[in-house]
């Protein structure tokens, strides 16, 4: 399986700030009633973007800059700390990715969300608290501003400013080498898998 090498994403950015943004907020459970991921993009952050009266409300994803990300199918979402906490639903990163975002920069990420995003080829990079505040302020002041997410060089830059970024080494390695979907590696040595299985009494039926 040949995958793109994701070394750097340079695209317009939209800030969706706030800490502990959970996956129910990213994609409410009613949209999980489906057997494919098709169409999830338009419902990303649905209940944050639409009021109980059904009317659109002020939200970073309801802006022309976010619409431009959707059109370009390329964009950087700037988020807070512990982003994507809560459920394991891959529907959450799927909805963000299908909306058009191809990289996420935040303070920290919930582990399952991070893994799900990486498996989609969406890099999630972390900045320190102060650096993230600076980036968020820049993007909020000028929505749609170009942000460079350098996965290989471990930095994020915008408007002449540049900050040191982190991402777990295995995820970075997979992204920059075009091996972010692990299936090829996992299928690579069936003999080793069988050997491990045979050593486990509850699997081997011993």
């Amino acid at each position, binding site marked *: 399986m040949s995958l793109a090498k994701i070394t750097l994403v340079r695209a317009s950015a939209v800030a969706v700030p*706030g800490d502990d943004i959970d996956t129910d907020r990213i994609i409410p459970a009613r949209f999980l*009633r489906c057997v494919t991921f098709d169409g999830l993009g338009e419902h990303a952050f649905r209940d944050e973007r639409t009021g109980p009266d059904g009317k659109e409300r002020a939200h970073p994803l309801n802006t022309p800059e976010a619409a431009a990300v959707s059109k370009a199918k390329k964009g950087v979402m700037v988020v807070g700390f512990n982003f994507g906490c809560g459920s394991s639903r891959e529907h959450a990163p799927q909805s963000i990715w299908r909306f058009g975002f191809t990289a996420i920069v935040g303070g920290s990420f919930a582990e399952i969300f991070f893994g799900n995003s990486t498996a989609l080829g969406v890099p999630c990079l972390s900045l320190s608290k102060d650096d993230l505040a600076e980036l968020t302020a820049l993007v909020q002041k000028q929505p749609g501003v170009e942000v460079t997410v350098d996965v290989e060089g471990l930095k994020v830059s915008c408007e002449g400013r540049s900050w040191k970024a982190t991402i777990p080494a295995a995820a970075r390695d997979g992204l920059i080498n075009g091996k972010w979907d692990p299936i090829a590696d996992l299928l690579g040595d069936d003999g080793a898998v069988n*050997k491990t299985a045979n050593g486990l009494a509850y699997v081997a039926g011993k």
Partner: protein
Amino acid sequence: MAKTLFQKVWDAHAVRKLPNGQTQLFIGTHLIHEVTSPQAFGMIRDLGLKVKYPQRTFATVDHIVPTNELREPYSDPIAQEMIEALRKNTKDFGIRFFDTNTGTQGIVHMVGPEQGITQPGTTIACGDSHTATHGAFGAIAFGIGTTQVRDVLATQTLALSPLKVRRIEVNGRLAPGVYAKDVILHIIRVLGVNGGIGYAYEYAGSTFDAFTLEERMTVCNMSIEGGARCGYVNPDQKTFDYIKGRPYAPKGADWDAAVERWKSFASDPGCRYDDVVKFDAADIRPTVTWGITPGQAVFIDEKMPALESLNDADRQTAADAYQHMKLSPDTPIKGTKVDVAFLGSCTNGRISDLREAAKYLKGRKVSPSVKAIVVPGSQLTAIQAVKEGLDKVFTEAGFEWRGAGCSMCLAMNPDKLVGDQLCASSSNRNFKGRQGSQTGRTVLMSPVMVVAAAITGQVADAREVFKV
């Protein structure tokens, strides 16, 4: 060298090191359900792959099943489509399906233990973040995404990096009216909703030794709410007694061998932990959430925090929470009006939860202003409860007695809050919109506290209501 259970299980299941430095880890037991598996089966078909170990894969249906409509087709055509997709996928690939007509269907994290599928020293994965529940048996159990469900279907392995281990010790006896749910809500309150990122939680100490397996499941279940992807309790005699005689439990001579093996997985005395945190059971009081994350919690007899008392990082989320919850900082939560009482979920939908709730509910009535529903987590639980007459206790008090499923924990079926209703809930998440209404409000608490709220029509201290 002395090792933790986590290290021993990891080592026994490690297939090989992958080029990116991660470990290819064998997953001995794969649990699947209707929400996060259909896309994975789609990927398997698209890639022309097979299910490598169909006999180690077990399916049930829980998230979308209606609890008051037992006949198909369901009134929600999408729910019908999802259950039929799972029937087809399990049939096509030869996977055991605990379907609705078998008397064994239920929330996936209840079916595994009930069937004896969940065993010590094993690895378990499921496309659901509450998979840590199975850690109560001394298993290493991960919640995974759909792409990973595909990985496990196709290879019975996952690409993972090892976790650090934090031992969380709770010692002493819980006071009357204080439950396992209060213990985990308190742990999350203290360590934070992101405190567990990068860790597996090992729960230990005399409080856990004294807990039943069902109580241990309640705590392990909410590890993810504390940011920890898995949590476990070392296996002991209670663990083995719980498993013995269940359909998938080892039999005869195999049983004795299995018990010896299971014992060997427990953390060794003197093993090294990356972190140790200790709690005194006597300090824990009935705990309720007031906000929109499970860490925003107080003891029932405390005031909710003043915004000024919080650090910068927490203040913004708290302000957002107060606005959503329509509650005021620095006031008691006790006395807040309750509209709905929900008793159920993989956190607190087991038979011991129903028994304890019924014990206090018996002879009392639900407040006329409250809609109260009780949803057994599984069909086996429901059957046992009926056998004990618990359903009558609930219905005579004014609770609606429902069929098994996830129900109003996440409101993917028709059980939903309406408008800004406030729900006293025995479930695990109080996120905005979690219970099906964008403006709905959730207060998490123990089952007995849910009963107290249902009776009084307000967030109440069960110790006062029931004079315990």
